[in-house]
């Protein structure tokens, strides 16, 4: 293989307001430049831009390590040491087994009816109102309720949880103003979580089970709190944004909404397409453990690569006509849940929630008319702050 003499590089700041407001044209330019593009704005960091290379990196943890490497600054990476997201096997697999005992499709199925009913009640109340804000009134309600109920958390943290989860994600970015603000907020969450003892978590809940197995797994209280934090934050912003993105997309594409209403069998495919089209998590990083050649470009060992899930999902090399939103596409292989050993542990739950909401909405609402959406900027999560909606039933 030949090595290009000057590797492709770009001075774009992927974490600036400007790019976060509209990342897709920038991603398209980076994809054109190469599968691995060095980012001048950061120190020894490359963007992986194309579907095949992102998936391959996610599937090869020996070369693309998560160990203290998933974020783009030292503060978060130090914090992530020993967490499920920020560690490699064998420690990672041990934590994952503890979470999957609760979150695997087999275990989570039993809550399907509960989530379906919660979605029905929620959408009924919104239909009665006729106009509402799809972010706080719809998208936020179900994940927040489900996560608090399932984990068995006391209500005292509820009012702050959205702000905390948002901060937890934004600090994965480089040390910009958003990250600095997030770093100030995180200790509040740990302070609250740190006060919780096993007895504070509802018996039989997912949160309680962490403490129940702590003895046999050799987790101390601090590790239990860390796992609790992962549970709570990972399933919050992500699912909320997926639901608000869905409403925005279906308002913009009424023909696609008609298709889902005419054939509810399309709901799983439609939810996959919503996730592909607007990846709730735009990017996570890895560190290469040795020199690797990516698409003819040598990336030196020790450098970080940013897996641009949001770019891979729009890669024309993998998805024909990628900027078209098509509920019949069923892109089951989208990158929005990642891939490989770190693939989203909560994807079965996220699907149950997403499908329940789409079903409840499609049974009752013929049209969404939306006002001016307001984007919420976060270094790695893409979603909305506000989306005024008026509905036709």
């Amino acid at each position, binding site marked *: 293989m030949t090595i290009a003499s000057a590797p492709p590089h770009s001075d774009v700041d992927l974490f600036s307001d400007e790019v976060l407001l509209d990342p897709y044209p920038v991603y398209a330019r980076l994809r054109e430049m190469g599968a691995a593009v060095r980012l001048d704005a950061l120190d020894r960091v490359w963007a992986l831009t194309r579907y095949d290379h992102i998936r391959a990196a996610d599937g090869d943890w020996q070369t693309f390590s998560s160990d203290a490497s998933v974020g783009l600054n030292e503060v978060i990476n130090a914090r992530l040491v020993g967490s499920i997201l920020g560690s490699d096997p064998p420690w990672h697999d041990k934590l994952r087994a503890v979470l999957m005992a609760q979150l695997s*499709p*087999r275990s989570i*199925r039993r809550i399907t009816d509960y989530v379906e009913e919660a979605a029905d009640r929620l959408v009924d109340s919104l239909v009665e109102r006729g106009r509402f804000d799809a972010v706080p009134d719809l998208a936020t309600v179900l994940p927040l309720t489900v996560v608090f109920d399932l984990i068995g958390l006391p209500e005292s943290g509820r009012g702050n949880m959205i702000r905390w989860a948002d901060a937890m994600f934004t600090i994965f970015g480089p040390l910009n103003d958003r990250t600095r603000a997030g770093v100030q907020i995180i200790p509040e969450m740990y302070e609250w979580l740190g006060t919780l003892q096993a007895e504070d978590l509802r018996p039989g809940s997912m949160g309680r089970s962490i403490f129940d197995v702590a003895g046999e797994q050799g987790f101390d209280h601090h590790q239990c709190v860390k796992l609790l934090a992962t549970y709570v934050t990972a399933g919050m912003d992500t699912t909320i944004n997926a639901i608000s993105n869905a409403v925005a997309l279906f308002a913009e594409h009424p023909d696609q909404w008609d298709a889902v209403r005419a054939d509810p069998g399309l709901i*799983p495919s439609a939810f996959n397409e919503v996730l592909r089209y607007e990846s709730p998590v735009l990017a996570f990083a890895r560190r290469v453990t040795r020199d690797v050649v990516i698409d003819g470009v040598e990336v030196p060992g020790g450098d970080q690569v940013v897996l641009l899930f949001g770019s891979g999902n729009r890669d024309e090399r993998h998805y024909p006509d990628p900027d078209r939103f098509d509920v019949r596409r069923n892109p*089951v292989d989208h990158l929005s849940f990642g891939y*490989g050993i770190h*693939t989203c542990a909560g*994807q079965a739950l996220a699907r149950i929630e997403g499908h329940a909401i789409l079903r409840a909405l499609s049974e009752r609402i013929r049209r969404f008319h939306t006002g001016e959406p307001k984007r919420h900027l976060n270094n790695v999560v893409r979603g909305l702050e506000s989306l005024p909606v008026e509905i036709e039933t």
Partner: protein
Amino acid sequence: MKISVDRDRCEGYGVCAEVAPDLLHLDDDGELVVDVEDLTPEQTETAASAARVCPVAALSLRDAG
């Protein structure tokens, strides 16, 4: 060719069964079941797609026999 499931890795998402419903299904307990032992060339192609979409890379194809 045969489909081989790495049971330690499989977390039961069933994405594979969505892609190859004639070859794989999840049983009532959510365990993945391989329905066809020896694959025809055409089935092998479908099975390869199923293996590609598995989020945890738990499926592979191996030579029969």
